[in-house]
């Protein structure tokens, strides 16, 4: 057992947790935040993606005890003041899901991704910060699988938000909701 204090979607929680518990299970079983999904429990599908201190991470491989002091944003924390996050609006607009099981992970992953600096492995010139082409989005989102195969519309939805907001604005938007 161990004590852990985490802020989740702006609310602080102090909990006594079994050291074996993942952050994913803490969110779902202890805090009742079931938006974050369990797909594989091995880091391979991205369904459990949340933002930890503003950075996307797979919560199934994050031990809850190791997150003491962390600021976590889940899909429940993306919308602010009753308004959908731009990514959520774009996913609806573009019909970017079918069953919806992968969607919370896709949304959190995209929110984190839009704030990430630097190249990806498909970037030609590593010293430049490339515009988010469809190829860049596909590579950067490859940690999120969709069994329904909604990829084409997911890429389009994220592309809309990237084009409208720009990466820097998105980073502020995400950290803003996390505080």
């Amino acid at each position, binding site marked *: 057992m161990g004590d852990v204090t985490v802020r989740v979607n702006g609310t602080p929680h102090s909990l006594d947790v079994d050291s074996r518990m993942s952050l994913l299970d803490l969110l779902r079983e202890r805090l009742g935040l079931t938006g974050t999904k369990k797909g594989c429990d*091995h880091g391979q599908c991205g369904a459990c993606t949340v933002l930890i201190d503003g950075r996307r991470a797979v919560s199934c491989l*994050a031990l809850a005890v190791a997150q003491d002091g962390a600021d976590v944003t889940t899909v429940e924390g993306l919308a602010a003041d009753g308004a959908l996050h731009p990514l959520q609006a774009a996913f609806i607009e573009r019909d970017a899901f079918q069953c919806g099981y992968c969607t919370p992970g896709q949304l959190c992953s995209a929110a984190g991704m839009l704030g990430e600096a630097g190249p990806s492995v498909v970037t030609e010139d590593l010293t430049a910060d490339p515009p988010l082409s469809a190829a860049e989005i596909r590579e950067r989102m490859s940690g999120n699988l969709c069994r329904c195969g909604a990829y084409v519309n997911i890429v389009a939805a994220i592309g809309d938000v990237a084009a409208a907001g720009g990466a820097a604005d998105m980073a502020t938007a995400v950290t803003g909701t996390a505080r």
Partner: protein
Amino acid sequence: MKPFEYTRARDAGDAVARFRAGAMYLGGGTNLVDLMRLGVAEPDHLVDVSRVGGDRIEPGGDGLLIGAGVRNSDLAAHPVVRERYPMLARAVLAGASGQVRNMATIGGNLLQRTRCPYFQDVSKPCNKRQPGSGCPAVAGDHRNLAILGHSAGLEAAAQCVATHPSDMAVALAALDAQVHVTGPDGSRVVPMPGLHRLPGDEPDRDTVLRPGDLITAVELPPPPPGRSTYRKVRERASFAFALVSLAAVLDVGRDGTVRGCRLALGGVAHTPWRAARAERALTGAPATAEEFTRAAGAELAEAQPLPRNGYKVTLARNLIVATLQELLP
């Protein structure tokens, strides 16, 4: 998962002091937590070192000193790495996913364990997981396992044909990186690719490290002259381990001969495989496709493919030739 105690170390000294038999260090947990859930790793104590050695990337000599706790994504996004060590940036970016790279540390990446399917399945024998129990991979599913330096030729209780899965380690092997280690017996520096070891008759030992040894940093010497890159062949376009990968540096003189080159293969052996024979064959030779093919052949003459992974010999040869051609000025 077996119950365990968790503590967070303040610094490297504190981490080593907290280490005892049955303990393991915890980095980002992306490999260790997975293996604990599978029952493959059963530590009774985790010493969290993810914030030890911190997130420093500093100039060191004419090179770079990278703290063991630096996250994989921060290494790849660092301006000096992108500019001077593009091969390393590309290797890191070719591994895992954005989420995993945000969590994974440099120390943990180097010490991640093989993806051999039998190693990960506790219902199966495996000499690496349970010394002496046998190696079902030799006669079984070894499609993605080793073609070089393996121990399939030894007695059943010693065999192992596993590969090391890290992309980053392949680039570090080509760059002659130095791994800084501190442990119960003091501090030392281990040069890459010497951190990892071939299975020999002790396949349970992946590296030359001893119990309690903590990786504190990785030091990069100045980048070798020439053009460089990292290429990875895998079963899907992204988010898959390498079948074969290659870190390559090629320096061609004005007269068209090779002044220097570095070649390291991934996905072919128990260690990142520095292709020293090919490097020697190529140095001083004309920088032509024929010579590249000859050099690749010199390296792969040593290969001992298993019944179902001979394709890797062809793949490695073609990858070396194609990548070197791409690096021609």
